[in-house]
């Protein structure tokens, strides 16, 4: 409909040429919003995403009123824009009336199921938003901006992955970003955070794999997994004690087992099992006195610890 479009064009040109107390930008804004009114749903009129809360609806309505209430143009010469502004405000108020009333809103959302699935967060002026996005994209293609843009993209995607719990992806994105822009503090901080979370996650995975291997009687494999877990997450007493327990078996490094068991006790001093494990390792290493002290501690924590009781009996009656 070329002719129709050109008619619309002349009407706009006429309005833009009108001598009123508005600057060109404001005129443009009012004209484009007025023309868009029929296409916009109630959420879009107020610049809201579908499913916005009652508080957000009210806030958006007050914000829009501040811009389009006819009193804002009191005593100004507006020409044809007076009617346009009134039309816009009425529509803003209509949208608000529907969205602020629980029943009307529910009805509206039932009648327009497509809105809920519509792309989120439509701004009041979609054309402007689109134009701004295009400008940003063009700028981003500039070679000077390319590196910075890439860093920002990586940072954004890193943040998203972090939020989604995909620490591996977040770590690789952020690592790349820090390589591109080593001085970026944001990237640096986030990277540390992700690295930590990522290691914790891997530790948890190793721990699980170790438990599976142990059940399948693959003790050597299980020991390796537990050891990995303990190295990845030095704060996990469980990983440390599990690794220590398996390392106690003959043919392993007793010193390493003792260190791990000691770590488990340090991290979780109130766990009788950890203390008894340490005692067993110390016994093995021929340090009976230290072992006895650990057993006593373990019995203090849990007087009914069966193995500890047995060990104590043994040590009391050596003959």
């Amino acid at each position, binding site marked *: 409909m070329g002719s129709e479009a050109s008619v619309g064009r002349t009407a706009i040109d006429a309005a833009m040429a009108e001598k009123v107390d508005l600057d060109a930008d404001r005129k443009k804004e009012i004209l484009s919003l007025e023309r868009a009114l029929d296409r916009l749903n109630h959420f879009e009129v107020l610049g809201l995403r579908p499913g916005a809360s009652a508080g957000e609806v009210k806030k958006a309505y007050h914000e829009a009123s501040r811009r389009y209430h006819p009193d804002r143009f009191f005593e100004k010469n507006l020409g044809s824009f007076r009617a346009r502004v*009134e039309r816009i405000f*009425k529509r803003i108020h209509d949208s608000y009336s529907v969205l602020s009333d629980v029943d009307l809103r529910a009805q509206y959302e039932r009648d327009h199921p497509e809105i809920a699935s519509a792309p989120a967060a439509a701004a009041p002026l979609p054309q402007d938003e689109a134009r701004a996005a295009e400008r940003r994209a063009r700028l981003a293609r500039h070679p000077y901006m390319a590196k910075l843009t890439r860093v920002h993209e990586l940072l954004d995607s890193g943040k998203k992955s972090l939020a989604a719990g995909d620490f591996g992806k977040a770590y690789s994105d952020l690592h790349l970003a820090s390589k591109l822009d080593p001085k970026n503090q944001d990237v640096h901080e986030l990277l540390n955070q992700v690295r930590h979370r990522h290691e914790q996650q891997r530790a948890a995975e190793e721990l699980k794999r170790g438990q599976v291997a142990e059940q399948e009687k693959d003790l050597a494999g299980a020991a390796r997994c537990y050891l990995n877990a303990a190295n990845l997450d030095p704060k996990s007493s469980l990983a440390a004690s599990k690794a220590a327990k398996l390392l106690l078996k003959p043919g392993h490094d007793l010193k390493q087992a003792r260190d791990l068991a000691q770590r488990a006790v340090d991290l979780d001093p109130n766990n009788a099992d950890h203390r008894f494990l340490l005692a067993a390792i110390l016994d093995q290493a021929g340090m009976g006195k230290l072992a006895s002290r650990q057993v006593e501690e373990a019995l203090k924590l849990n007087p009914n610890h069966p193995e500890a009781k047995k060990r104590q009996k043994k040590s009391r009656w050596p003959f």
Partner: protein
Amino acid sequence: MAREPVIGIDLGTTNSVVGTVQSGQPIVIKNRLGQNLTPSVVAYAKSGKQLVGQIAKRQAVTNPEATVYAAKRLIGRKYSSERVQQVIKTLSYPVTCGEHDDLRVQLGGKLLSLPEISAAVLRELKLDAEASFGEPVSRAVITVPAYFNDGQRQATKDAGKIAGLDVLRIINEPTAAALAYGFGKNVSGKVAIFDLGGGTFDISVLEINKGVFDVAATGGDTLLGGEDFDKRIIEALVFGFAKEHGIDLRKDRMALQRLKDAAEKAKIELSTVNETQVNLPFICTPPGGGSALHLQRSLTREKLEELTEDLCERTISICEQVLSEAKVRPDDLKEVILVGGMTRMPRIIAKVKNYFRREPSKGVHPEEVVALGAAVQADALTQQESRVLLLDVTPQSLGVAIAGGYARKLIPKNTTVPTSTTEVFTTSKDLQTTVKIMVLQGESEIARENELLGEFVLSGLREATRGEVEIEVTFDINSEGIVSASAKDKETGMQQSITVTASGGLTREELDEILEKQADNLLDSPEDEELAERRRELSEAMRNVRGFLPKVKAAMDGSDFAQDAVRRGEQGLTRAEEVLRGKSISALVAATDQLTRTLSVFKGWLQKIGSQEQ
């Protein structure tokens, strides 16, 4: 040049206040007697002079029949209405019925409409403001009770016009109070305004959000206020006196006026003390002759509370109703603000405290806050970049009369203005070719119990069985609160519409006539007396300077000083001519001062020359 000042006026039942915003701060403009409150009283003295304000109130006792007070209770109402009849019974001045069922007051041998009475008060306030600014003021925002209907608002607007004011907007008193309360503060949240004034009670709930004042609901009773409390006291006094002496004091207008004053005074005193004395010596002479009788009684706060308990209770039941309409619980409110002199009564404060479950705000002055709020709105409207925006609502529902004598609401009350709505109606009879659209305001479902704002006829409909022809009715309220209605035949596109105006008792012609007379009268007003006086002074100064100029020029010795003095004198004269054409008193005074100074320079100069020559 600074923009012309704008004012806000609280046109009250008993007192009126005028305010303005000066350097970003709302302030009360004192009247020329130095008081913040101007009594809303207009009188015709026996000398034939019209008196307004404090002087009118002071002579009320001796001149009850020509002293009009509480005009606000009658403005914009119909003579035949039951409530008006009730009110008239208690008034000391005569009220008669006008041509269109409106009210007229006999004053100084003339029949005046109520807008004219209120205009006298408004004009007084306008003059006070002009005296304070030293320049003319014409633009104002005037407040009315929230529950005033369209007719009462129009009548108030007419009063403003008669007083020579350009009424920018009529706003609701509680809303104005909220504007003053929230102005310049960064408050957010819901507040309730409890406004019990001299004649009316209003309650409004507003949500304030960073300068946006969103009215959620409003309601009230236009005939519930301090006057009703006074009336209860008067009745008690009259009853006691009748029991003692067998004389009904209400028949004596002068006694009634004295009783009224005494009752108001006692009521105010009982807000601070527990007991007070009513002393009215020589209140009347017994009909059979003999010495004059005195009225002497003590009144306790407890007794007053007992007499007015139902009035206090009524305010709270209206609050309940308005809050439930706004879907607000007392706990949701951030603040309760008391407005109006009557809210000083301890019983009222206790009731409010009990219902809203909190201590009411003491941050505002109950009698001045409304005028300050009106000033804030006047400022917000006329200023370029204002932070304040008021989202006001329609106080009453609008609808049309439908078959069976019922009313169908199109715009429910508490709808934010501007607004418009469209509904499709059909013919109600077979072969119906015309429909009459009656525009109604009010809450009743029975058409005749509502106020009729206007009516018009849409004719030329196709003859068809009933229900077949569809008529689209559109109601529109613009941001000025002006209602217009139109009806359209959907088949033929034929359309009829009206804009509802001037239903305030005066017809357009009558208003024009009054305004015209006003123009003739203009020179009589005190403002113009002063203006004439100042003009006379300036003309005289100009004459003197002109008289000296040739002499000075003749004696000029070519020195810089002399040339400079002559040039300044000539400039002063040109400016004075300009100022003389204007109406600004301050400019006239300034020009006169300058010419006087020039004159003394000339005189000193000539003296010096003369002494040298000798």
